[in-house]
């Protein structure tokens, strides 16, 4: 579904009506559709102020588990309005519009803006579907001696697998959720996710591994989730190898594994760090798929020891340049894409632009996330985008520390930092 319209306030009812109708058609309940419509209203008004009269297209992307409302605009709007902490200036009309946008972004689960490869900008509002609470049906899980792997499991097997995750790994789902069963089935139906399932000869569940191939060069993998974790080695290896084989001849550069337990070394994943999440510890592994030829990397002096250590242990060939703040303007302003999981209190910040206001914008974000009681806050720094290095001292100053390195996770390598507490 797509709507082409001019950015004039008179068109707002048409756009809002389109958003709500399309969201309902995509399966959002009335309340979620209304939230998306509200967000649409505020975003549309803000865009009318920023680039009045421009022709835009609005379309809805039904992801099954979520609905994305995508606004394609031909030129960059005033990007400051997109930070979730953008504060209203009550003295001007523009300020009031920003206040609306502030509310709009908080009504969504994900809010981002990106420059499109073929020209123009795309702003996304994502609202996730809600699912009924799972029925409690804990059952004993037994080890399966011989198993077969399938990449096209039957819906009943997928539901069984989701129940296994809920029963045995509920607290260790990171950074995605695969429960209740309806959510996992919808994620698989979106084609962005896949599942490799191991079943015994009678169809009994042995374990499985989920992958998510979003945009970018990395595939995120979750698991292995095993019915009998005491005997995981051979099954874990088989699941990991099948996954690697599946993406071996693809354009993807690597696999990142978020594992609820330590995967065996022979599974082919290299250690990439571990993460403390509200429910425990997540082990992370990295598996490069391609032969890499090395890369340039711009790294802040504060992150240099972490980065060089990891490059050394992962044998990454990097031409590392220490990036210093020499007073340059950078991108002019700072803009974060945010991804929120209110249920588990997790927030991920991705810097889209980093400018001289980085410290203030970061602190505003953290203040807001603290107010809303987000306990697990992460931020990434991309070694392929030199201005990201300007953000590093402010992250460390605000209690973040680097935990994980994802080679080729962004334009260059991605350093994932986690906030430990207050200011240092």
């Amino acid at each position, binding site marked *: 579904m797509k709507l082409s319209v001019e950015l004039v306030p008179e068109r707002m009812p048409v756009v809002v009506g389109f958003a709500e109708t399309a969201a309902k058609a995509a399966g959002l309940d009335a309340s979620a559709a209304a939230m998306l419509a509200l967000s649409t209203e505020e975003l549309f008004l803000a865009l009318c102020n920023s680039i009045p009269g421009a022709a835009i297209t609005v379309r809805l992307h039904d992801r099954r588990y979520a609905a994305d409302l995508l606004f394609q605009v031909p030129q960059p709007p005033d990007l400051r309005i997109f930070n979730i902490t953008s504060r209203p200036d009550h003295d001007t009309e523009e300020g009031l519009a920003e206040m609306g946008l502030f509310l709009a972004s908080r009504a969504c689960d994900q809010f981002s803006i990106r420059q499109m490869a073929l020209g123009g900008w795309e702003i996304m509002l994502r609202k996730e579907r809600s699912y009924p609470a799972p029925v409690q049906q804990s059952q004993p899980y037994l080890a399966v001696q011989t198993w077969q792997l399938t990449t096209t499991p039957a819906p009943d097997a997928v539901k069984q697998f989701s129940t296994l995750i809920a029963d045995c790994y509920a607290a260790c789902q990171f950074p995605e959720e695969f429960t209740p069963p309806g959510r996992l089935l919808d994620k698989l139906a979106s084609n962005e996710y896949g599942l490799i399932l191991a079943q015994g000869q009678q169809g009994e569940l042995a374990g499985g591994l989920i992958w998510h191939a979003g945009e970018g060069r990395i595939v995120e993998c979750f698991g292995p989730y095993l019915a009998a974790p005491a005997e995981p080695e051979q099954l874990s290896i088989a699941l990991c190898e099948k996954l690697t084989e599946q993406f*071996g001849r693809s354009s993807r550069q690597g696999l990142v594994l978020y594992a609820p337990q330590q995967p065996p070394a022979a599974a*082919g994943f290299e250690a990439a760090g571990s993460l403390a999440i509200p429910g425990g510890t997540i082990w992370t592994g990295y598996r490069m798929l391609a032969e890499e030829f090395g890369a340039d990397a711009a790294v802040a002096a504060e992150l240099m020891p972490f980065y060089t250590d990891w490059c050394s242990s992962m*044998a990454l060939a990097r031409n590392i340049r220490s990036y210093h703040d020499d007073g340059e303007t950078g991108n002019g302003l700072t803009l974060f894409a945010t991804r929120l999981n209110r249920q588990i209190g997790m927030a991920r910040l991705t810097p889209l632009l980093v400018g001289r206001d980085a410290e203030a914008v970061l602190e505003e974000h953290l203040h807001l996330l603290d107010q809303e009681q987000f306990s697990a806050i992460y931020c990434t720094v991309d070694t392929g985008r030199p201005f990201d290095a300007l953000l590093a001292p402010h992250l460390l100053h605000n209690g973040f520390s680097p935990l994980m390195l994802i080679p080729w996770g962004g334009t260059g390598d991605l350093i994932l930092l986690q906030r430990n507490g207050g200011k240092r």
Partner: protein
Amino acid sequence: MNLCNLEALVPQYVRQFEAYIPSPPDDELQQMFGCSRLVRMNNNENPLGPPPAAAAFLKTFDPALVSRYPSGDCRPLRAKLADYLGVTPPQVILGNGANEVIAFVIKAFCQQGDNIVTADRTFAVYEWIARFSGIDARLAPLDDFGFDEEGLLARVDSRTKLVFICNPNNPTGTWWSRDRLIRFMERLGPDHIVVLDEAYAEFMDQPDYPDGISLLSRFPNLIIFRTFSKMYALAGLRIGYLVGTEQVTDIVRKTAIVYSVNTLAQSAALAALGDQTFITATRSLVQEGQQMLAAQCAELKLPILTSDCNFAMIKLPFSDTLAYRLLMQQGYMVRTMTGFRFPGWIRVSMSNCDAMQGFCTALSRLVHSRTDQSPLARAYGVSL
């Protein structure tokens, strides 16, 4: 600046396809990986260099000749090849490397909605060219590292135009015997073209190994690919060819690009062709390399697949792409097999004695450094 509407202009199958990125030059790689020399053991090149006659020709080549176009259809070389192979000149078509003749054949026979059938773990270029041409590539899993007759036949339907068989298979080195190939051709029938890629045929020293060209009279739906890049060491000049019946090559010629094989390549190939002394010397070098590598792998308890070909596959107890990076640091470049859907394997090209010894030492050092720790410490880089 007016931006053209690329979104609308680019076909979906091209948009989805990711461009292949070849490796940078040696000096850049050496600088990046911090090694003082780089031994390429990733492309199955012949370390002996071209046969003496070809080398002599290249040394004395008159630069004035490069201002003229080459023979557009490689006439002198086709004549010599035809004589050498026992076919007629029209049965031979040359291209700028075997990759180009793969494209000629796919363009000649396939249109939207058609498909090709091949194995899932073989030379990738058949699959790539089909996919970025909008043609479906159906892949049959290998059976015990070899092409699986049943799996291939099960994927063939009325829209299957081409079946690609790499014989011997790159990267596993497995091959079909003459009897097996004949049995497959009989079962498949005449309604599909079978492309027999014999890029490594000159390395084969097995009585049962079939010469595909000798089967053309019996199976006119066969096309055979050969190359001057591997045995004849002319990879840098890019020259390969196909042989088929005249009826088939008359069709392929319609989509073949003329003048794409340069003068140097044509003349060097002409000089190189059929040098049996050189072929014997190369086979001997390959055999020594295979034996040395097999002994090293036995000592390290690593599974290895060897063959008559100038490459071998080794299974490592850790990631092949990590091994690649660590071997690069020691100055040895191998091919990772994850991209061939063999995670954890590397393919190593046979080289001269010095390089093979150096590689064996580097491999041994690598395996010990990764396996001397406990599995947990190794996986997570921690000391226990």
